[in-house]
C-alpha cells in the first residue's frame, strides 16, 4: 500500500489535513472572507458579546474578533512556515556537515546541539528574543533557531546511517564526488523523515509564536496575532471572557490539525512505527 493510501485511511489525519487546508485558504483570502476591517475600532461596541453583527464578539477596542482571528491565521502560518524553513535549512546544513565530514567538527557541533536541546524550549526562545528584541521577524528567527538543533540531529543520524549503506559505498567506489553522493544518494532519503518533522514542527512553532506574543515579546500590536489577542483579552477576562478565549480556540485548532497531519504522515511513511508509537 502506498504512503498516500495509508494516510487516506487514517481518518483523524485526513480531518487534520482538511483543517490545515481551510486555515491556509483563510489566511490567503482573509481580506475577502473577513466580515469587518480587523483594525476598525468602534468604542461604543467594545467587548460586544457574540451576536448577529459580530459573530464572535468584539474586543476591548470594539474590533471584530472573527475578522482578527482570520487575519491572525496569516501571522501564525507565516511565522510557522518561515521559521520551519529556517530550522530545516540550518539543521540540514549543520547535520550534513556533522554527519558527512565527521571528526572534530562532528564532535563540536553535536555537543552544541545537545546543549541547546537540553534547554527548555520556551526559555531558549525567550533568551533569543531577549537578545534580538521583540517583533514578528525576530520571533520567526527565534522559533527557527530553536528548531534547528533537533533537525540537525535527525539529519546527522540519517547521514551516518546512509553513509554506511551498500549503495552509497558502491557509488563511492565508482568514484562519484562527495557532492553527488550527498545530492543523489543521501539527501533524497532524508526527505520523508524531514517532512514529518517539519509538519510536527509547524504545530510547535504556532504554539511558541503564540506564547511569545502572549508574553508581549513576540508580534507587536496592533497586528492581529492569536497569542497577542489572548493577552489583551486577559485584561478583561472577568467581564468579557470571550475576548481571550475565542482566539485561543483558533490556536488549539491549528496546532491540533498540524499534530494530526504530522502523526498521520509518520505512520504512513514509516509503517514499522505503527501501533507501537503514538
Amino acid at each position, binding site marked *: 500500500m502506498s504512503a498516500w493510501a495509508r494516510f487516506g485511511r487514517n481518518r483523524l489525519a485526513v480531518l487534520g489535513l482538511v483543517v490545515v487546508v481551510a486555515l491556509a485558504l483563510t489566511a490567503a483570502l482573509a481580506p475577502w472572507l473577513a466580515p469587518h476591517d480587523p483594525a476598525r475600532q468602534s468604542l461604543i461596541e467594545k467587548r460586544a458579546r457574540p451576536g448577529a453583527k459580530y459573530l464572535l464578539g468584539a474586543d476591548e477596542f470594539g474590533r471584530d474578533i472573527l475578522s482578527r482571528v482570520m487575519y491572525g491565521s496569516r501571522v501564525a502560518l507565516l511565522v510557522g512556515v518561515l521559521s520551519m524553513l529556517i530550522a530545516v535549512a540550518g539543521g540540514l546544513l549543520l547535520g550534513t556537515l556533522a554527519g558527512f565530514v565527521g571528526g572534530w567538527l562532528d564532535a563540536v557541533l553535536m555537543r552544541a546541539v545537545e*546543549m541547546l536541546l*537540553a*534547554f*527548555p*524550549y*520556551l*526559555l531558549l526562545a*525567550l*533568551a*533569543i*528574543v*531577549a*537578545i*534580538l*528584541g521583540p517583533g514578528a521577524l525576530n520571533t520567526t528567527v527565534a522559533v527557527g533557531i530553536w528548531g534547528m538543533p533537533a533537525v540537525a540531529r535527525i539529519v546527522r543520524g540519517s547521514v551516518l546511517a546512509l553513509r554506511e549503506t551498500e549503495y552509497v559505498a558502491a557509488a563511492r567506489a565508482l568514484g562519484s564526488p562527495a557532492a553527488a553522493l550527498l545530492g543523489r544518494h543521501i539527501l533524497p532519503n532524508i526527505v520523508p523523515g524531514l517532512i514529518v518533522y517539519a509538519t510536527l514542527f509547524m*504545530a510547535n512553532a504556532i*504554539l511558541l509564536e*503564540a*506564547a511569545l506574543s*502572549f*508574553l*508581549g*515579546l513576540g508580534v507587536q500590536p496592533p497586528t492581529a496575532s492569536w*497569542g497577542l489577542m*489572548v*493577552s489583551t*483579552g*486577559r485584561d478583561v*477576562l*472577568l467581564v468579557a*471572557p470571550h475576548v*481571550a*478565549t475565542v482566539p*485561543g480556540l483558533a*490556536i*488549539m485548532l491549528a*496546532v*491540533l490539525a498540524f*499534530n*494530526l497531519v504530522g502523526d498521520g504522515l509518520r505512520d504512513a511513511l514509516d509503517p514499522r512505527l505503527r*501501533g*507501537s*508509537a*503514538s
Partner: protein
Amino acid sequence: MPVLLGVVFIVMLTIDLLPGDAVTLMLGEHATKDAVATLRAHLGLDKPFAVRYVEYVGRLARGDLGRSIQQNRPVAAELADAWPATLELTVAALLIAAAVGVATGVVSAVWPNSVFDAIARIASLFGLSMPIFWTGLVFIVIFSLWLNWLPVGGAGSLTHLVLPAITLALPSVAMVARMTRSAVLDVLREDYVRTARAKGVGEPWVLAKHALRNAFIPIVTLLGLQSGQLMGGAVLTETVFAWPGLGRLMVKAIFARDYVLLQGAVLVFALAFVVINLLVDLSYGLLDPRVGRQG
C-alpha cells in the same frame, strides 16, 4: 560545571549584543553623555567583555550575583524570594504529570483500542495542542468566575496552587500518557512477560513486577525531560496566575533590560536543569540493575 560556565558565557555574550541598553533605559532618552558614562562605569559596563566575564565568574564563585539594576537589590536575594514558588509549582505539576500520565498510559496499554484508550488518546492530542496560557485562562473563567471554587491568581494557600499546577501539568500528562502506553505495550510483547504468564503468574503481578519495572526507564527519562519543559511552561503559567516565581521575574527582567537579574535567573534555571539530569541518571542505577554505578 563546564555547562554552567558555558551558559554564563553565552548569556553574557548575547546580552552584550542587545540593541537596547539598560543604561539608556534607566536614565531616559535625554540623559547627558556624562551621566551615561558615569553610570556605565558604575555598572562596570565600560570594561571589555572578557574582563567582565572573568569578574562575573569570580564573584559567582563567592556566591555574589551582583545587584539588580531595577530594584538595586542583591540578585541572590531576589532569586531566593522567587525560586521556592517556582519549585512548588513545577514539583506539583510533575507529580500530577507522573501520577495521571502513568496511570492513564498503563490502563490504555492493558486494554488497547478500548473506549478508554480511544478517549485517552484523543484527550492527549488535545493536551499537546492547547496553549497553556490559554488553558489557564479558561480554567480561571470556569472555576473562579462561574463556579467560584478557586482563587483567580496569586499564591499563599493550597487552593491557589490547584489551577496553576493542573494547567502547567496538562501537556506533560499527555506526553507521559502517550509514552507510557507505548512503553508498556512494547514490554507486554516481550518473551519474559509471556513466560511469566505461562507459568501462572497473576496478571496484576505480571504488570507490577515485569512490565512496569521495565517500562519505567523510558518513562523516567521522559519525566526528566518534561521537568525542563515544565520550567519553561512555568514562565507562562506564572504570568497567567500572577504566581510570584522565577518565570515572572525573568519576564520582568527581560522587559526592564535588567541583564544582571536576567543572568541570575537563567543561571538558576540552568542549574536546576543540571541537577534534574543528574537525578535522572542516578535513578537509572536504582531502576535497572544492568546500569553499573561506576558508569
